[in-house]
């Protein structure tokens, strides 16, 4: 008998390339889509994501902006109100503080406050996270802050597949959407079915099923969690790994279902511990699945400090697979 015909040819590319293809697709399929941001054009994008797009689509649709985060994000809000589908790039989440007023006071407020007269179909992409030895002001993970804002959708593509297709879902949403791309992922390669056209952003994804403990995470920490799960499995502990994918609205059901099966949970989050999105995930479990739990909830987060430059200190600040293993092991087999 022959081997079964493969139903698809795998598509292999870097996360960076996936982001770029998603942008190209958006620009090609909707004339209302345009890009704005610092150095996305001539420079080719600070992470080279937009390289080549200026040449292909021209200055009208690939708009280099001056260093004016508040103004050009606000311009995105206004353009979305007036019929366009802007995709704004803020180089990194660290600089997004300068634009936060426009995001919170305008983008997410106007639809509701105007009584539904205006929608703001705006997509904002930003890089996030640490690990690049660029010190405190360039290494923050503030996804949790954004996930606090009603009216916003917050996406954290961790896989090449999600980087390739989440943008499409974001553009289909009539509301402001933030896409966080973790800086350590751009060079990562991955594949997806070549006949794949879209992803479902409503659901968290169980990347690995397991019986003993749920490791719940998102973004750049996903791979640390998967690594930890491998290590745990060699110790006979069967960990389930969940990628939240969308931080707002949270897919509480997938979380609760997993914890109901495993009865133990570790949440891994590159944000600072206190007041993080991991607290929210934990609290949801404590509210809705309290009687399912056999052990206290646990978190592995970044140390509560500005992230230092020195490599050994930065590594010690960020969540690492070894810590996840230790915390999960202690939960399953208390010493």
């Amino acid at each position, binding site marked *: 008998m022959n081997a079964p015909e493969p139903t698809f040819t795998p598509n292999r590319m870097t996360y960076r390339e996936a982001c770029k293809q998603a942008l190209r697709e958006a620009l090609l399929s909707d004339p209302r889509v*345009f890009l704005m941001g610092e150095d996305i054009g001539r420079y080719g994008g600070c992470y080279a994501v937009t390289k080549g797009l200026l040449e292909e689509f021209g200055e*009208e649709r690939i*708009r280099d*902006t*001056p260093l*004016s985060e*508040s*103004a*050009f*994000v*606000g*311009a*995105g*809000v*206004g*353009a*979305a*109100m*007036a*019929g*366009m589908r*802007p995709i704004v790039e803020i180089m990194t989440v660290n600089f997004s503080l300068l634009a936060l*007023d*426009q995001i919170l*006071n*305008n983008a997410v407020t*106007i*639809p*509701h*406050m*105007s*009584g*539904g*007269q*205006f*929608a703001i*179909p705006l997509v904002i992409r930003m890089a996030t996270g640490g690990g690049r030895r660029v010190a405190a002001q360039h290494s923050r993970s503030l996804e949790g802050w954004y996930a606090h804002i*009603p*009216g916003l*959708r917050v996406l954290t593509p961790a896989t090449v597949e999600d980087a390739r297709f989440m943008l499409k879902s974001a553009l289909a949403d*009539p*509301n402001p959407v933030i896409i966080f791309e973790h800086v350590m992922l751009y060079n990562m390669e991955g594949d997806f079915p070549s006949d794949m056209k879209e992803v479902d952003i409503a659901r968290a994804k169980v990347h690995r099923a397991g019986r003993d403990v749920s490791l719940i995470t998102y973004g750049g920490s996903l791979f640390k969690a998967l690594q930890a799960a491998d290590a745990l499995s060699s110790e006979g502990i069967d960990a389930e790994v969940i990628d939240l994918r969308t931080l707002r609205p949270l897919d509480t059901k997938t979380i609760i279902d997993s914890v109901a099966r495993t009865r133990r949970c570790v949440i891994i989050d590159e944000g600072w511990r206190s007041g993080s999105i991991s607290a929210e995930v934990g609290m949801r479990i404590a509210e809705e699945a309290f009687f399912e739990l056999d052990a206290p909830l646990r978190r592995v987060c970044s140390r509560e400090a500005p992230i230092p430059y020195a490599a050994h200190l930065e590594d010690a600040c960020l969540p690492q697979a070894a810590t996840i293993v230790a915390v999960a092991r202690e939960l399953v087999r208390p010493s």
Partner: protein
Amino acid sequence: MTKKVYLDHAHLLHLLKAMIRIRHFEAKCVELYQAQKILGFLHLYDGEEAVSVGVMEALTPEDAIIATYREHGQALARGVDPKCLMAEMMGKLNGCCRGRGGSMHFFDRKRRFYGGNAIVGGGLPLALGVALADKMQRRSAVTACFFGEGAVDEGEFHETLNLAKLWRLPILFVCENNLYSMGMAVERAEADIDFVHKASGYRVAGEKVDGMDVVAVESAARNAIDRIRSENDPYFLECRTYRFRAHSMFDAQLYRSKEEVEAWRKKGPILRFQTWLEANRLIKPEEIAAMEKEIDFEIAEAVAYAEAGGLEPISELERFVTMDEVPA
């Protein structure tokens, strides 16, 4: 070349009426505020009527407006229905924003009225986007962006003017310089109070106009709009004006004297225009009386409409936190 405003009789009456409408509408608001039917902040436009009325005359229905939290005048002059505004201020479902926005947040999509904004300077970046969208969609519309002189101090002013010029966006920047931002006199807040010079730091052309003279404002605005369309460039208009009342309803006005206010009142835009019309026999006393009667009737209707309005059901509180679709 300066464009003359065509001052036929109907137009003169129209200008006067538009200003008196705002004045009377706000007088009624104060009453309703005292009766606690309007709550929260209430920023009156009393004294500044000529600015909005003059500027709006120069705009077409295709043009867009970005307003401030002191936008009763801006909205009324734009032609937003006083009924919906009054209902909005009374927090009713038949208000222009279902009662969610109140005095500081009038929106009217049909009139391209992109909202009152209560963050000082917060509307400026929005103007960039609306104008850019129009430009990219090959509409010839102009965006009129209103802001107080206090907003000039915010970084958003700087970033916005630079981008407007760089991208050659059709924006009319309307600076309502009423000499105070709350209690801060403009010369205490700005190292340079020559705003037209400041705008030149972005190569944005501009001029200063007497904001107490409705005809001067209209004329300047018409010229500005022509220039924006022909030169394909933003323009900056500083309207010198004065607010006769407190900043909002909680303000002891410790920062200025009664005499100063009185002196300005004598230069008030309605008083001045009406006196001029009368002196030149361009209007008859009975025309004014009839006009005021009409306006007061309109306002009474607005109040009745608002009083009759229901409240948004609490069950709908979360509606539009996220939109299901982009309104057509």
